[in-house]
């Protein structure tokens, strides 16, 4: 009887805590809520050492922490959450640890799809981001299955970076852009390619040639944000000849005949960005790295150029609600300043 009573009490208490948490989130939601939070999950092993336990305990505790934080994020109204689960650099660890992590990943990916899991509860679409070919086949297949099973979920998104580094992502994006443009050029009628080559690309006569052109155009929107477009357009006020001489590093020699240029496919910054693994989500608004280490470790270098970076000292399994709340409050504090700056760039 007491046991049943005890169980009921803890259930009630749990419900009360959840209620309080939701009230807290309602208060925080008066201010802007980040659309996308990224986490570097660092410190599992140190946590295990601290508790005088085996490393495996640390990783399991880390998984529990992840589930809790995901719950908090999605309750708060964050749409995208990205986590750095396994770097390409981590393959350098001991074979035993790598094997264990692959096993754990397989177990947890399969668990994601089970009923009652947070994925179903919040309607989360899952993406596995990285060079999945580097994973063992069972893990890769499980990841693909999970992505397919959650493809129609629309309420929120979870991006799990495995076998990932920014370097690999950028190299892959550049390669894919080159290949994709080459195919486009090959599919063009020969006459169009020749005309385009003669009027705008005198150097690019072979059918397999690629040309980077108009970095200026793509730079306007992508490099520095769409706000910078006005800045760049304003600064190049005169003729196309002026534009040609002023473009970064003298990339564009001729703008004359640009109509024909535009019809001949060429690589632009937008193409590179389109082929990034992370193109499925907007850039993060906050990056949180646990365990107090203040470095990026080859994670989302491209996407975090203007993102606030927080590095609480808590190890990953210790990271909790208050760290998240603190990060969001800091985000809200700097949001106004950043929005004012963005607004100013747009007005200019």
């Amino acid at each position, binding site marked *: 009887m007491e046991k049943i009573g005890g169980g009921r009490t803890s259930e009630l208490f749990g419900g009360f805590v959840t209620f309080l948490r939701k009230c807290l989130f309602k208060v925080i939601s008066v201010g802007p809520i980040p659309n996308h939070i990224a986490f570097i999950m660092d410190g599992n092993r140190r946590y295990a050492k601290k508790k005088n336990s085996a490393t495996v305990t640390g990783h399991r505790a880390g998984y529990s922490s992840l589930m809790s934080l995901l719950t908090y994020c999605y309750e708060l109204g964050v749409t995208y959450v990205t986590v750095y689960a396994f770097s390409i650099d981590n393959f350098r660890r001991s*074979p035993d640890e790598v094997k264990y992590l692959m096993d754990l990943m397989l177990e947890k990916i399969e668990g994601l799809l089970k009923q009652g899991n947070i994925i179903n509860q919040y309607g989360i679409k899952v993406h596995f981001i990285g060079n999945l070919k580097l994973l063992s086949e069972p893990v890769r297949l499980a990841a693909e299955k999970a992505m397919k099973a959650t493809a129609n979920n629309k309420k929120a998104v979870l991006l799990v970076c495995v076998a990932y580094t920014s370097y690999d992502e950028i190299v892959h994006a550049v390669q894919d852009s080159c290949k994709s443009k080459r195919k486009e050029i090959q599919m063009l009628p020969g006459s169009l390619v020749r005309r385009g080559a003669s009027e705008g690309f005198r150097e690019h006569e072979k059918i397999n040639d690629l040309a*980077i052109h108009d970095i200026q155009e793509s730079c306007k929107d992508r*490099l520095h944000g769409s706000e910078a477009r006005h800045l760049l357009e304003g600064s190049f006020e005169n003729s196309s000849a002026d534009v040609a001489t002023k473009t*970064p*590093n003298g990339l564009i020699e001729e703008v004359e005949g640009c109509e024909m240029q535009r019809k001949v496919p060429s690589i632009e910054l937008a193409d590179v960005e389109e082929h990034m693994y992370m193109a499925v989500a907007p850039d993060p608004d906050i990056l949180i790295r646990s365990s107090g280490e*203040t470095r990026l470790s080859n994670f989302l270098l491209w996407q975090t150029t203007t993102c606030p970076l927080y590095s609480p000292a808590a190890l990953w399994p210790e990271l909790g609600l208050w760290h998240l709340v603190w990060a969001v409050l800091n985000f809200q504090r700097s949001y106004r300043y950043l929005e004012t700056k963005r607004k100013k760039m747009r007005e200019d």
Partner: protein
Amino acid sequence: MLSLRLPIPSESVLASVMQRPPRFLNARNQTHLFCSPTLSEPKALQSSTPQATAADVVTREEEEELNDGTTPPEEELPEGLRRELMPKHVAVIMDGNGRWARQRGLPPGAGHRAGVESLKALVELCWRWEIRVLTVFAFSYDNWIRPKVEVEFLMSLFENVIQSELDKFAREGIRISVIGDWSRLPESLQALIRDAEEKTRKHSRLQLIVAVSYSGKYDVVQACKSIANKVKDGIVQVDDIDEGLIEQELETNCTEFPYPDLLIRTSGELRVSNFLLWQLAYTELFFAPDLWPDFGKDEFVEALVSFQERQRRYGGRK
């Protein structure tokens, strides 16, 4: 738990990841894969290192001819700092000049002038403590939106500082390099920079890299543009595009140590603001609350002490 058959043992995965041997034994391989707390690069590797395409890279064969400036006796480092753990390359985002001036009821120009004094002091410290490369974020591409008056002031400030410090650089063996989109700078400043770079090209005691009209994304994009041109010309195949190739084309190919070990940002802002995107992959970040004109020796020592206490694992295990 399901038993897992790994068709690809981790060593093979690592081998496949690294299957294309790096085209260049670059700074990342030298400092990152070997996880050495001393951050020293194997000297044997350096002599066989193929050189980057930029003319400015210094080769070991030229070292005897180089001017490493006056060489004072090895200076005692402040307490708490260990010589073997000093970073080779420090990068700084010099933020807070405007706020510093506003706090004192001064115009922004006064803040920038005070910032220049801070920079001179930092260059001096790096020179004395034998830090090899100091990269400073003087003017971001995003800063062009600032009021025209302020931008013109900054451009003329850069000119004055380069002119006044060039002799000192010559005496002390400091090499100056400027990275960024020069095309937007006034012609006179461009000419001055070209001249300063040429005059100090062979100096080797300390390299001061000044990022002006620079953005990390722009740097990666122009590297990709160079690579695409090489693909077009048949010099490189698409499948040969790798990390080493991109690194070689970045603007930081003007130095032997393109990747900062430590990045310091002043004024308490916790972001990178489009500075050195690719190069910061494994850099230790230190966010100092002080405004840039207030960042002096004590604050720099604090940053260095923090750096020396960190464990750099590069994804592996100690």
